[in-house]
């Protein structure tokens, strides 16, 4: 079942490949804008890097959130999903996983390349990548709640960011914190394990409030 949902969402994403490619480009462009806005001193750039990369990852994920359920809502598929025999939470879990594969994973793959632009050491690059690998699933999970709550609501997209970004802040702090800790010579373990806890919570706990919110949206 989970596979059916993931498969369908992935096929849809492949069909609009532009989505994946463009999400990655958004990430790249945001990350590259900063040096333009801030100026080119390498020292300052290095200290900004974890923050900028993580904020860009947050924003890129968030941008793709509104479509998580909106398309299915508009064309009536969401009703059909709600009426499917298995619990809605499981379906949502499938959609969250598919969302991460499409919107989160590419960022993880890109991060080391972009980190080089900021003159990060290989240690820091590794930690950056690992922190994104652990943290982005949490972003998808938490984001799903916001996407469901704002479904069909006036002012959807931006209201969504208002709801979701505050909840993303802990992920940002631990994620960027892990890299910062590496840069300043402390170990990243503490941050990473907190991030892991957030990710587990985000992926396995979030589908249930999300399902509840979807039912409310369809009423």
């Amino acid at each position, binding site marked *: 079942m989970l596979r059916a949902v993931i498969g369908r969402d992935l096929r849809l994403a492949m069909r609009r490949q532009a989505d994946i490619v463009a999400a990655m480009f958004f990430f790249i462009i945001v990350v590259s804008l900063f040096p333009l806005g801030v100026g080119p001193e390498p020292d300052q750039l290095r200290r900004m890097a974890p923050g900028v990369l993580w904020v860009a990852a947050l924003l890129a994920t968030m941008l793709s959130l509104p479509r998580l359920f909106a398309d299915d809502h508009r064309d009536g598929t969401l009703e059909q999903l709600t009426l499917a025999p298995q619990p809605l939470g499981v379906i949502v879990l499938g959609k969250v996983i598919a969302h991460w594969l499409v919107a989160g994973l590419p960022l993880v793959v890109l991060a080391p390349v972009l980190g080089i632009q900021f003159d990060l050491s290989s240690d820091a690059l590794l930690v950056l990548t690992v922190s994104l690998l652990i943290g982005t699933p949490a972003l998808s999970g938490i984001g799903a709640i916001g996407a469901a709550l*704002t479904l069909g*609501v*006036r002012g959807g997209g931006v209201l969504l960011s*208002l709801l979701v*970004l*505050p909840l993303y802040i802990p992920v940002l702090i631990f994620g960027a914190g892990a890299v910062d800790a590496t840069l300043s010579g402390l170990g990243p373990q503490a941050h990473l394990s907190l991030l892991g806890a957030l990710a587990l919570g985000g992926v396995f706990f979030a589908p249930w409030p999300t399902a509840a919110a979807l039912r*409310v949206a369809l*009423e």
Partner: protein
Amino acid sequence: MTDRVINWYKYASPQTFYPLAGKLIPWFWALAALFGIAGLTIGFLIAPTDAQQGEGYRIIFLHVPASWLSMFIYLVMAFWAGIGLAFNIRLSGMMASALAPTGALFAFLSLWTGALWGKPMWGTWWVWDARLTSELILLFLYIGFIALQAAIDDPRRADKAGAILALVGVVNIPIIYFSVKWWNTLHQGASVSLTKAPSMAAMMLWGMLLCALACWMYSIAIALMRVRTIMLERERHTDWVRALLSGNGHDTSRHP
């Protein structure tokens, strides 16, 4: 089962709660005034100067109550929201909506007084430390809750959606509270600023507690007032509101 619960929340509860709240409100106002006067007297007239911070520390008598209340109200709001979601009781949804603006007010006041305190003490209005940041998140959560409810016209749907958000956001409260313990930050941890002499500490503590109590009573009074307004608006087609509106005008026009 459904039948009775529905009838209960739809008709009985707001109908009985409305006049009850009307009777309670003056008492809470009185208590708020009493505690407020006492707390401010102790805090601003009697309590001695702080050894390190001078007179500026007196902001504590506003800042701490506001901060406490901002967190506490969120917990209460989430509690009502959860009850409403679980048992489909409409009154609790109304309570949650009634609490949110006051909670947002206190979150804002906590930030404001904190910022005004930070300038003389830390030399800056704002630092991105964990306590301050998580308090800011709290304000955003309140605003998110209010905005979400405002964006949904169907009150029952708004209640449910808001409840889900409120419950999810509860995780932020322990983060605010323990942030000073978990991260070493600029912000004082508990009781650091209470200076050495135990008698002074006691005096400050009393002032703080009384002011907090005043804010607490204020919040209850305000929430009850607001919930009554919400009830009128949402139940305007029920018989009891119609009776109230067309019949004895004194109850509705009189300010409680």
